[in-house]
């Protein structure tokens, strides 16, 4: 948002931006806008849409049209959820929390490192056409190889411990951040750059005081995309080789044809990723309202 000549009422925040200005008269559009806003306040989205999904799920699962081993009932999943939360799963006797925290322990450093690399490399590339032409083909080439291609190398170089999972997470997370950093930094208006130059702003000041706030909406979009994908990143690493983590839990669940447990693992992954996404969205709302 900030990179741009701002719309007049932008201060009302990102969600409201599209609300018609013609809103105090009784046009149809405006009633819809009001209604939208009301619903939004009521719902804040998440509870509403999850309830809808849950109802749909319940309905389909109980309709008898889908085999229960493909789509277990919500109750069965909830029961399994309850069980693995308290007693643990059947192979390791470890609880859901144990696996989740193992994955989280890889996602967090992975995300942190991936975002850092994405932003740094993106910044450098945005600034240097030379580096762009040299690096971007390599980056693209590596990003488009599936991890199985280099999995053995990963495992052998980084061991079977957490490092290789952090690395797969980094690999998945850094790319969207890189791309958005490049376009974000490049979208900073030249006239504001000139302004900063007039005050002989240092590189760091240029970055901190101009480029970051000006590119913020685009950077945050990169972060949201990365946050969403980060859990998959770690889980993919866990698929290759691991002793614990949600990736192990879901493989084990699939291996023992325990569909409810598959669902529990998948939902836990979603919950993790959604939480990370929400944190970024929260930061966005904090910084972009004002």
């Amino acid at each position, binding site marked *: 948002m900030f990179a741009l000549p701002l719309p007049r009422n932008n201060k009302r925040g990102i969600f409201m931006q599209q609300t018609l200005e013609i809103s105090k008269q009784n046009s149809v559009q405006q009633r819809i806008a009001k209604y939208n806003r009301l619903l939004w306040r009521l719902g804040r989205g998440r509870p509403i849409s999850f309830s809808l999904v849950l109802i749909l799920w319940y309905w389909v699962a109980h309709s008898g049209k889908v085999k229960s081993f493909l789509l277990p009932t919500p109750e069965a999943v909830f029961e399994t959820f309850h069980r693995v939360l308290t007693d643990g799963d059947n192979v390791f006797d470890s609880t859901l929390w144990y696996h989740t925290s193992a994955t989280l322990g890889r996602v967090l450093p992975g995300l942190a490192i991936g975002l850092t690399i994405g932003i740094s490399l993106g910044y450098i590339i945005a600034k240097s056409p030379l580096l762009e032409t040299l690096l971007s083909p390599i980056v693209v080439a590596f990003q488009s190889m599936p991890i199985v291609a280099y999995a053995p190398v990963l495992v052998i170089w980084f061991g079977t411990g957490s490092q290789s999972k952090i690395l797969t997470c980094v690999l998945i997370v850094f790319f969207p951040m890189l791309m958005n950093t490049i376009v974000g930094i490049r979208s900073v208006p030249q006239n504001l750059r000139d302004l900063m130059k*007039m*005050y*002989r702003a240092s590189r760091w000041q240029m970055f901190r005081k101009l480029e970051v706030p*000006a590119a913020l909406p685009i950077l945050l979009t990169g972060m949201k995309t990365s946050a969403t994908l980060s859990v998959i990143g770690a889980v993919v690493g866990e698929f290759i080789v691991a002793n614990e983590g949600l990736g192990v839990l879901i493989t084990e669940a699939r291996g023992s044809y325990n569909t409810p447990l598959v669902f529990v693992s998948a939902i836990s992954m979603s919950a993790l990723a959604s939480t990370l996404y929400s944190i970024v969205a929260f930061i966005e709302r904090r910084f972009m309202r004002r």
Partner: protein
Amino acid sequence: MSINLTTHNLVVEFGALRALGPVSIQIQAGQFVAIVGPSGCGKSTLIRVLAGLQAASFGEARLGEQIIRQPSMRVGMMFQSANLMPWRTVMDNIALPLELAGISSIERQAAVYDLLPLLNLEDFAKAYPDELSGGMAQRVALGRVLIQKPDVLLLDEPFGALDAMTREQISLDLLAMWARDRQTAVMVTHDIHEAVLLSDRVLVMSPRPGQIVEDIAVDLPRPRHIEQTYDTEFAYLAQTIRKAIRL
């Protein structure tokens, strides 16, 4: 400490298009020079070269003895557009130069509150640029230059979006400030009255590629007052400039 500004056979080309020059001018330290000329003749380009934001294609520009290659801390520039940062309040926009210079937040705040009445923006310290009218934004930009206390002032149509009253008021305030600190000042303007009222010299530029076609000294006594605009000498000078532009 004000300082000389000179250009020597300065030419700026954009690709095949010659936008400016050749222009050779000497501006003494502490002089107030106004530049007038038709739209698109290269006034902004000249100011940008003096600011170190635009490279010369031929010739050179000097700040004191130094060839201008990059912006200098001693130079304050007001751009033709307000150029505010939309994510900063009026207050923080004005304080930007101090912030970059590492001045503490309290001092910054004090300095801004000193300026706000002059800019007639007392009620808007906490407002964001998207809540300002065109003229208010321009006043914020002016505040941002003034707070910097530069030795050289480069002003590119600083009062374009101000109404007549505010404009007179602010230009006189600017003049008072200049009389105190005696910066070297170069101002682009479309308003011939304003040019005469404020400056020691008016440079008249030809259409693109702009060259200096007239260099008119304004010997009106200082400090200046709005009443001087009714003097015959004032009217005569304005008339001369008007004619020079028409050439």
